[in-house]
């Protein structure tokens, strides 16, 4: 990766997200949103990486990202997701979930909808409730699912004032992140190392499946689902480990990969190139995991499988597995094959890298050192 641009922005960045490109369009990736945390005033901001040398005359060189607009956000931005092209959903440490609307004509952001008390604690004895941070949000138009420190799961619809469905006390510990498995199923990770699958078709407040790390109960902080294979899930934990799960089978991770030295804050499969995975961590590192399956043996299975008898027998005995491994490079658990190539993307270690997002050839990440890094040539 040749060019990575850093810009110091005077606020600690908690989340960075690319604006999705409309499917089938030829538009390139050019806008991303950020959220800040732990400032006296926090903001949700929109940035552009487009070339507009004509717009800014004062030293903004090509490649540098420019602020388009921002808006005050009450509390820390705990999570941020694009709902669609214009709308951004932000989760706040005050337990509030806000939908911001971007007006491209005059470059402003406005609040389009808000659920102020999406997450809250009910204290003992006192009927008054204190707010609880909302830790994660995930969108699948028109639905929005949020999770929080109160162990509650909310299902909202963009056009409804009230929550469609709330699962109180869904988790006894803090829920750290949520993602859609396949509608209407969601996946949550919590602070005692569990992965839970919830099916909104089922009534009651029990998960349909629980998967967990054995013994240690290491908190899980992030989760992402393979874009094409919905059963493959990656999570990152407090000890910096990357776990790959197959939610169809077993209750334990398929593989545990030693990664960062501190909390892994986010993990993302590349949306269109899922053999590539990206992780970032509290230890200030940002890693690119490349599990491209261009191993010579693979192709030989098709072309000369018959000639190599040992290989053939192997392939017969593990036919199911082989078939599967051809599909997903992440589920192969052969430690002898050191196929995953890891590269560190940031030049020197800084404070925590809190968030990252990948789309097409572009990557953006934000740090506690108040810098936003952008690269537009991920695979060059």
């Amino acid at each position, binding site marked *: 990766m040749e060019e990575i641009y850093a810009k110091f922005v005077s*606020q600690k960045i908690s989340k960075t997200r690319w604006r999705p490109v409309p499917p089938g369009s030829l538009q390139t990736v050019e806008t991303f949103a950020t959220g800040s945390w732990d400032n006296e005033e926090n903001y949700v901001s929109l940035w552009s990486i487009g070339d507009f040398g004509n717009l800014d005359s004062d030293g903004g060189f090509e490649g540098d990202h420019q602020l388009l607009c921002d808006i005050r956000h009450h509390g820390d931005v705990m999570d941020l997701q694009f709902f669609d092209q214009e709308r951004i959903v932000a989760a706040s440490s005050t337990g509030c979930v806000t939908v911001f609307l971007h007006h491209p004509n005059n470059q402003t952001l406005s609040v389009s909808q808000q659920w102020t008390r999406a997450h809250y604690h*009910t204290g003992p004895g006192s009927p008054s409730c204190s707010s609880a941070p909302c830790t994660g949000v995930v969108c699948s138009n028109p639905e929005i699912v949020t999770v929080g*420190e109160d162990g509650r799961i909310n299902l909202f619809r963009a056009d409804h004032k009230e929550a469609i469905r709330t699962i109180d006390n869904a988790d006894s510990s803090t829920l750290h992140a949520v993602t859609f498995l396949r509608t209407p199923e969601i996946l949550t990770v919590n602070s005692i190392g569990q992965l839970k699958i919830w099916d909104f078709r089922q009534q009651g407040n029990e998960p349909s499946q629980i998967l967990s790390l054995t013994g240690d109960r290491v908190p899980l902080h992030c989760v992402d689902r393979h874009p094409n294979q919905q059963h493959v899930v990656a999570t990152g934990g407090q000890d910096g480990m990357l776990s790959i799960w197959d939610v169809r089978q077993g209750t334990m991770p398929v593989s545990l990969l030693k990664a960062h030295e501190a909390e892994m804050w986010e993990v993302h499969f590349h949306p269109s190139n899922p053999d590539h995975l990206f992780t970032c961590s509290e230890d200030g590192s940002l890693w690119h995991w490349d599990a491209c399956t261009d191993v010579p043996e693979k192709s030989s299975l098709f072309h000369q499988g018959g000639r190599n008898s040992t290989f053939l027998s192997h392939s017969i005995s593990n036919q199911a597995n082989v078939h599967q491994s051809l599909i997903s490079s992440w589920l192969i658990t052969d430690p002898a094959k050191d196929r995953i190539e890891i590269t560190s993307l940031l030049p020197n270690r800084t404070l925590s890298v809190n968030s990252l997002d990948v789309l097409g050839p572009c990557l953006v990440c934000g740090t506690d050192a108040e810098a936003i890094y952008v690269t537009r040539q991920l695979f060059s």
Partner: protein
Amino acid sequence: MEELDGEPTVTLIPGVNSQKKQMCFDWGPGEMLVCETSFNKKEKSDMMPGCPFIHIIRKNEDVYSQILRKLFNESHGIFVGLQRIEEELTGKSRKAQLVRVSKNYRSVIRACLEEMHQLAIAGKDPASDRQFSIQVSSLSAMELIWNLCEILFIEVAPAGPLLLHLLDWVQLHVCEVDSLSADVLGSENPSKHERFWNLVTVLVLQGRLDEARQMLSKEANTNPTSAGMCRILGDLMRTMPVLSPGNTQTLTELELKWQHWHEGCERHLQDGTFASSPHLESLCKIMLGDEAALLEQKELLSNWYHFLVTRLLYSHPTVKPMDLHFYAQSSLDLFLGGESSPEPLDNILMAAFEFDIHQVIKECSIALSNWWFVAHLTDLLDHCKLLQSHNLYFGSNMREFLLLEYASGLFAHHSLWQLGVDYFDYCPELGRVSLELHIERIPLSTEQKALKVLRVCEQRQMTEQVRSICKILAMKAVRNNRLGSALSWSIRAKDAAFATLVSDRFLRDYCERGCFSDLDLIDNLGPAMMLSDRLTFLGKYREFHRLYGEKRFVDAASLLLSLMTSQIAPRTFWMTLLTDALPLLEQKQVIFSAEQTYELMRCLEDLTSGRPVRGEPDAQQLQDDDVETTKVEMLRLALARNLARSIVKEGSLEGS
């Protein structure tokens, strides 16, 4: 008492009337609380309504500037990098690296300076404009001082190259010439521009002789009468011997050549070559280092250090570092000419020319409004091994003292505390205690933030702080009725007492509701269960319920009994356990063996006989006792029946 270096500044607090009321204050880590007391200053004044506010006084406002935040964040990375420079590196490579670090710091200052300048001229409102221009001048002073220190202390340029560095320094900081040059060259006829000669003079003053020659050739083209003179002066400019970096000539050679050239210039002046053109004559005098001629250009020189460097360039090009302070002092005196007294910046630069590092740092500490500059400069100079001998009579050494001040300032800020951590790390003596004191005061608004603080503490094995943070979070969770979370936090803190407390809450909830909450946690306790007896009991008791639910009655029964006999179960809970045994005793098949039944009976008797005799019971107690007695009676009956059945069963088994 140490002598004061300057008058302390007075801060007026709006709304507080210190004439009438006494004030009180309290120190914070980076701030001060001030309020009016109810004491009157003078007896006679009547009860005046005072100011009802408590004021927070911040020591360093600069921390709160949005643009300076970039400076703090970016320089933090450079600072950490500098600390990791390997000690083994010696000689040239080490010096080169330190110079690079110094340049990095300066470029960060420059970037901030430029941004601040943009804002200052953007002109949103006069008040903030003034604020910005104050900061612009403060930042440019910082860069000026830093650059000079870099040349003198870090680069340690020897005679010869020293002057080239100083020339660069002046060219970088007296930059009006660029706009002047653009102005003049942009006009239709440059040589007729009213400030044409100003430009030529400035170029000569800054030693930019190539550019000056080009200007002269323009003049020669438009003014044929002076063409000859211009050519001669241009030749003098071209032939002035200078030290070029790639050249191998020795200093003595250079000095000889220079002397020769100087004499040539002098001859032209004496011969009156330029007598007909006052402009050219004055230029020639400047090139001869004529002090009077130089001082005539005060306006264009704009400050004494420019005067110094120009003077050195044309009269002592091979000045030795040790002699600098002599020329500097006389230049300052000549330039100010007794009209004005030197300003703080002048004193700082003078101290640098005198190679008095401590004086530089001291003056900077007094003059500048933040600790950023002195802390980073001192640290860098310390890495150049220039400060080792200096120890303060308080705290540790100067580097550490300044870093601690700076880091404490960062901790006082709402969000810059993370930067402060690394600065404390590199203060070997008092850094750790300072960090311990500061980190406990960070408000833990969300678990995410708490985790970051925890990580800081855990990486540094600050067990006491880790315990305290986990406890705070556990307490919060209990208050919010999040027992699962509370238990997790107390397990993480290895806090047995708190785990016991939370376990009791779980058991109480169970007794009230008849079912467990937060099974996902309790079922997965694993080895953490051993943290406290009560937690072990909670885990085991839940296991009993699971066994019972799975209809593994024999296992369930022996687990239940062992909970009591091993004394893990608290006495107060025995009755509940015995009641749980009832359905097992009433099963069709015999579950408790005779021996186990005896044990159960003993437990029951222990419990009932140990009861204290109470005084006059009230109605409620009587009723409670009634229920209790019935329960005990039922248990006794069930136990007796089970004993009979088990004896029969065991006897028949043995008999067969």
